[in-house]
């Protein structure tokens, strides 16, 4: 049977076909849909973990118990999971373990574009890189076989184009006859204290040698001999661009990008006149080929920043480009917080209070954009709280007061708790705002430990954020409705002025939550054009529902009733009482 699947759907299918028992992840673009799709397959326990480190540790446990485990995350998530990953390389597996890293060249939805192929080399684990959805499925199956054959975790690296691109996939039946999980004690392998780890290290080095030999004959590493004047070593999506732009070139298509098949590379290099490596981001393959003493051209012509495109490849090889139409400079269309988004009022207030906002990762990072313009830093998940602590350490007291960390509910549970613990423990006088919108919104509304539901849709314990914060030692805890601007401003100002750590929890659900009874849409409000003075105060909210309309000489605001959710925030900023319930 054939289906059109995205790379993420195909990985989920591949995991099902491979007999995966446990799948764990923290959502992150472009990886999120793997777990969202895996729940359709019976017999897989799939769950969102609070962060990627926990997700991998859950996967490791399942593997040690003898079940096959899939763990998925975005590229920067592997940074969070790196600690268990590097030692998992030492222990190896019992049931197969595959870690998917979904990289994001071009940073379509990320804070950096690190090339996670480097993790394979660094952690000494094999890595496969599919080039379309069929390979996403097939390589997932293959990765589990390699994992068990070589006693190693296997990384599967996708990029945004493979994760979200769709292509035709031939489905297969699931494997059968996998051993049933059961407890097996093997301390020498699974207890990594120095005496045991010292024994495991040589095993890893031998494993890499064996994997390199295996890679030389592995079917997913293949030579495609065509015109021999140009030979290109490539993998993943860049392979597709090479086939598109250089259809006559000979290609060594690598399905396994670590360890590299040394013999195969030498053989290919000898067969072609001029050798190139075409790869996105780092010269990962190129450097290794050069270290083998082989002359090769790579980053000398291929850009190191951003994702490749067929056009960029055409330029690199000095090929003719088609004539393209020119268009005038146009207004951009950046993403925006939704109409009725509970974050809007808070960022408006922070802007008014001239707070120095140490931000974090989520929809609320959009609070950086004008007209709200109320974010001053954003590094990684959970960083805002630690950043706030650090910055107060160097500032004079009057400036310390301005420091406010903002963090979403899911991000706080991901990696903000330890930061807040430090803020209390080391007495930093900053304010933390936890934007509790009842969901992990940015990645498309995933459940989390504060939402009361699991990935499988089951009801579960809902963490009590004020209690949690109290247990960390925070004395000043305020819970507010962020759509009440006056109250928000008063409370945040009070807490900013307080020379000790305090937490403000804003409670209002994301407008996109579909589960019944969580978000209730209110009646749309309207502008009374007779009263509106055209002062534009409401436009400073940046709400997509509020539209400026030129009306003769003077403009007036207009509210799109289709978009308005009735949050009333604009009503509160209008000094002339021109906005209110529709008459």
């Amino acid at each position, binding site marked *: 049977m054939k289906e059109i699947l995205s790379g993420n759907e195909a990985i989920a299918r591949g995991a099902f076909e491979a007999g995966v028992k446990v799948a764990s992840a923290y959502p992150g673009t472009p990886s999120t849909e793997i777990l969202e799709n895996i729940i359709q397959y019976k017999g897989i326990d799939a769950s969102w973990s609070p962060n990627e480190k926990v997700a991998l540790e859950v996967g490791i446990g399942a593997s040690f118990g003898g079940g096959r485990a899939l763990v998925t995350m975005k590229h920067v998530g592997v940074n969070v999971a790196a600690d268990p990953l590097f030692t998992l390389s030492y222990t190896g597996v019992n049931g197969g373990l595959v870690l998917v890293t979904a990289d994001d060249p071009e940073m*379509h939805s990320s804070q950096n574009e690190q090339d996670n192929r480097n993790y394979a080399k660094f952690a000494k684990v094999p890595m496969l890189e599919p080039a379309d959805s069929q390979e996403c499925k097939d390589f997932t199956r293959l990765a589990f076989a390699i994992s068990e054959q070589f006693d190693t975790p296997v990384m599967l690296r996708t990029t945004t184009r493979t994760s979200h*691109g769709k*292509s035709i996939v031939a489905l297969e039946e699931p494997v059968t006859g996998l051993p049933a999980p059961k407890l097996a004690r093997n301390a020498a392998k699974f207890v990594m204290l120095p005496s045991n780890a010292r024994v495991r290290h040589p095993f890893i080095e031998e494993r890499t040698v064996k994997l390199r030999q295996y890679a030389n004959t592995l079917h997913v590493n293949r030579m495609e001999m065509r015109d021999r004047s140009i030979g290109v070593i490539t993998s993943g999506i860049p392979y597709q661009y090479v086939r598109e732009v250089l259809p006559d070139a000979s290609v060594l298509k690598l399905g396994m990008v670590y360890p590299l098949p040394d013999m195969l590379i030498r053989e290919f290099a000898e067969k072609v006149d001029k050798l190139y490596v075409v790869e996105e981001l780092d010269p990962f393959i190129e450097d290794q080929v050069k270290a083998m003493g082989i002359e090769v051209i790579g980053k000398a012509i291929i850009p190191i920043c951003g994702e490749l495109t067929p*056009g960029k490849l055409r330029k690199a090889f000095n090929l003719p*480009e088609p004539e393209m139409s020119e268009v005038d400079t146009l207004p951009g269309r950046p993403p925006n917080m939704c109409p009725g988004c509970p974050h809007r009022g808070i960022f408006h207030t922070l802007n008014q209070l001239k707070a120095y906002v140490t931000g974090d990762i989520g929809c609320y990072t*959009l609070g950086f954009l004008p007209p709200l313009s109320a974010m001053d830093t954003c590094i990684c998940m959970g960083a805002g709280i630690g950043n706030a602590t650090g910055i107060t350490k160097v500032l004079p007291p009057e400036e310390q007061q301005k420091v406010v960390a903002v963090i979403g509910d899911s991000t706080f549970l991901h990696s903000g708790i330890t930061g807040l613990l430090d803020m209390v423990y080391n007495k930093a006088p900053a304010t933390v705002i936890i934007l509790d919108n009842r969901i992990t919104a940015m990645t498309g509304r995933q459940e989390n430990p504060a939402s009361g539901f699991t990935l499988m849709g089951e009801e579960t314990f809902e963490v009590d954020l004020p209690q949690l914060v109290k247990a960390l030692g925070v004395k000043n805890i305020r819970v507010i409705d962020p759509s009440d601007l006056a109250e928000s401003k008063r409370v945040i100002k009070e807490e900013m002025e307080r020379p000790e750590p305090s937490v403000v929890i804003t409670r209002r659900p994301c407008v996109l939550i579909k589960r019944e009874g969580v978000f209730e849409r209110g009646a749309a409000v309207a502008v009374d054009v007779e009263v509106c003075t055209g002062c534009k105060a409401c436009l400073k909210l940046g709400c997509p529902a509020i539209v400026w309309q030129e009306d003769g000489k003077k403009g007036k605001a207009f509210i799109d009733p289709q978009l308005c959710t009735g949050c009333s925030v604009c009503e509160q900023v209008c000094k002339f009482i021109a906005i209110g319930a529709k008459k």
Partner: protein
Amino acid sequence: MSKITNILLVGVGGQGTLLASEILSEALKQAGFDVKKSEIHGMSQRGGSVVSHVRFGKEVHSPIIPEGEADILLGFELLESYRYLPLLKKGGKVVVNDLKINPSIVSTGGGSYPEGLADKIRRSFPDCIVLDGAELAISAGSAKAANTVLIGALSKQLDIDEKFWLAAIEKMVPAKALEINKKAFFLGRNVA
């Protein structure tokens, strides 16, 4: 190299551009072609510009259309259609929805929506088709079916049997909206 047909679908988050590209890909798959489709999720969901690349033929390699090689641009909104014209080849076909959605910079009074975009598009692509998707969708029974009207208009540009289009719509559209969407498809198909 065998001929690959490249279709670019552009619009604004929330317009159903992605569902339209799903219907298109499914119809092409059912008609027996190799199909690849690429788009960016994530940030673009929040009211941003949405671009979906669909390519089909005997064997498709790149999931994204090489710059300047799109054969057809199916535009769900005027500004976005105009923005992506450079991706279209000379002599390519434009099918565009006669709809303006203000970007936030315009709706907040910080800029203006460019005038005369349909004419500008026509200047470079004289046989461009401009249709009112919303009006046709409303006459089919729901304004929400505008994306299916556009798929109908696109279908006239491709040599794919009607039965594959209908099968794709049946597969991708929820049962309760099926009749309206079929009607919308034919209204679009008859315009072009």
